[in-house]
């Protein structure tokens, strides 16, 4: 095709072909998020042919019949209900300047959870929902929330709740920085760390459905769709930040600070490869 465009100018043709060859060589070794997501999805659907695709968002409950029943019963009186009520209240409560969260978000913050995280080209970085909430507070002269639980868990619970059923729709804009962030997140996901030498993938790719002690490990695909979660093990609600930092400590690694680059990037990666799966948060886990 290039040849026909460039016509008979032989020098140019050669230049174009050379460029084309180099370009392909680079492409073979560069990131292809679309292919990644396809392979990711195939890996889990092949591994668990009986699990309905949308059910992957239910984590351990999708892996085990008995647990699934228990969970269905529990959902009648969900343990996250208190957080949900609190989140609704905080969401509507005006800041000191009279504005509310609704003023910071598209569609007044309702039904938008599935679009986070996104790559913010102005800030040049991945913006998660948790980060966006604190940026909203700070830009309105309010104190930011602590990232791991309490108010942050409550507000994200409410925002997820208004987005239930909407499929993850994470976009990677044509910006090399966005691709680099995605790649960095993928690297973080597969890198072993801590004295126990585990990566995120050790548990959630290699061993989903298996028991770690009495607990059933969740598959990586759809794992963030249920966030934030009430965890019996935590005795309360926890955000995505809490999930990442506590995973790090469990493998005997010192956690990074919530919302550090690595955490936002891994959330970007993990959400992107779960595209198409519906938001189910807030969730409850053992």
């Amino acid at each position, binding site marked *: 095709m290039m040849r026909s465009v460039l016509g008979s100018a032989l020098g140019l043709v050669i230049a174009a072909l050379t460029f084309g060859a180099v370009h392909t060589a680079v492409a073979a070794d560069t990131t292809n998020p679309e292919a990644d997501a396809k392979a990711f999805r195939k890996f889990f659907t092949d591994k668990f042919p009986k699990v309905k695709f949308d059910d992957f968002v239910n984590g351990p409950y999708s892996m085990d019949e008995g647990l699934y029943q228990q969970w269905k019963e529990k959902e009648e009186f969900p343990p996250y209900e208190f957080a949900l009520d609190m989140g609704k209240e905080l969401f509507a409560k005006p800041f000191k300047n009279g504005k509310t969260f609704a003023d910071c978000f598209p569609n007044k913050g309702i039904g938008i959870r599935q679009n986070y995280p996104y790559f913010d080209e102005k800030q040049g970085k991945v913006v998660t929902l948790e980060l966006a909430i604190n940026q909203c507070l700070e830009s309105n002269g309010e104190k930011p929330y602590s990232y791991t639980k309490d108010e942050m868990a409550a507000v994200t619970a409410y925002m997820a709740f208004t987005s239930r059923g909407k499929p993850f729709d994470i976009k990677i804009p044509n910006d090399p920085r966005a691709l680099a962030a995605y790649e960095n997140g993928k690297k973080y996901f597969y890198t072993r760390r801590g*004295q126990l*030498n*585990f990566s995120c993938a050790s548990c959630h790719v290699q061993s989903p459905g298996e028991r770690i002690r009495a607990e059933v490990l969740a598959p990586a695909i759809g794992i963030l769709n249920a966030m934030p979660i009430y965890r019996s093990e935590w005795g309360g609600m926890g955000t995505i930040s809490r999930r990442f930092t506590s995973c790090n400590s469990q493998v005997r690694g010192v956690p990074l600070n919530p919302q550090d680059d690595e955490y936002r990037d891994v959330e970007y990666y993990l959400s992107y490869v779960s595209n198409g799966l519906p938001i189910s948060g807030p969730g409850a886990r053992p």
Partner: protein
Amino acid sequence: MTIARFTAATPRTGRIADARRAGIVMTLVLFASLTASHAAQAQSSAAEGEKIAFDRSKGNCLTCHEMKGGTLAGSIGPALTDIKSKYPDRNELIAIVTDETKRNPQTVMPPFGRNHILTEKEISAVVDFLQTL
């Protein structure tokens, strides 16, 4: 460790014929008593290894492996049964516990030796215990 020290000392002292003969006899006697005490040692070491294997801050084997004497075991790794027939070579077990990633880069098994989760002595005790399963 102890055996190595004794046997290494023998040839150096064996210059005079009498002494050499006496040395050999002595070594044999020592060796016999050492093997007996080594067996007893392995037994107490296996008991020590069992403690380490079940200790959550040490071996914590139950998190991933079913094994005799433990409840609420994980299922990430294979059940630990008939270890002696599966791994007749003790050194293979030592190698697996020390750093299984050397043999299988994809393993989930933590490298207990490389990452100093257990000392060499603790690994040896755990292996003594594993051989009783």
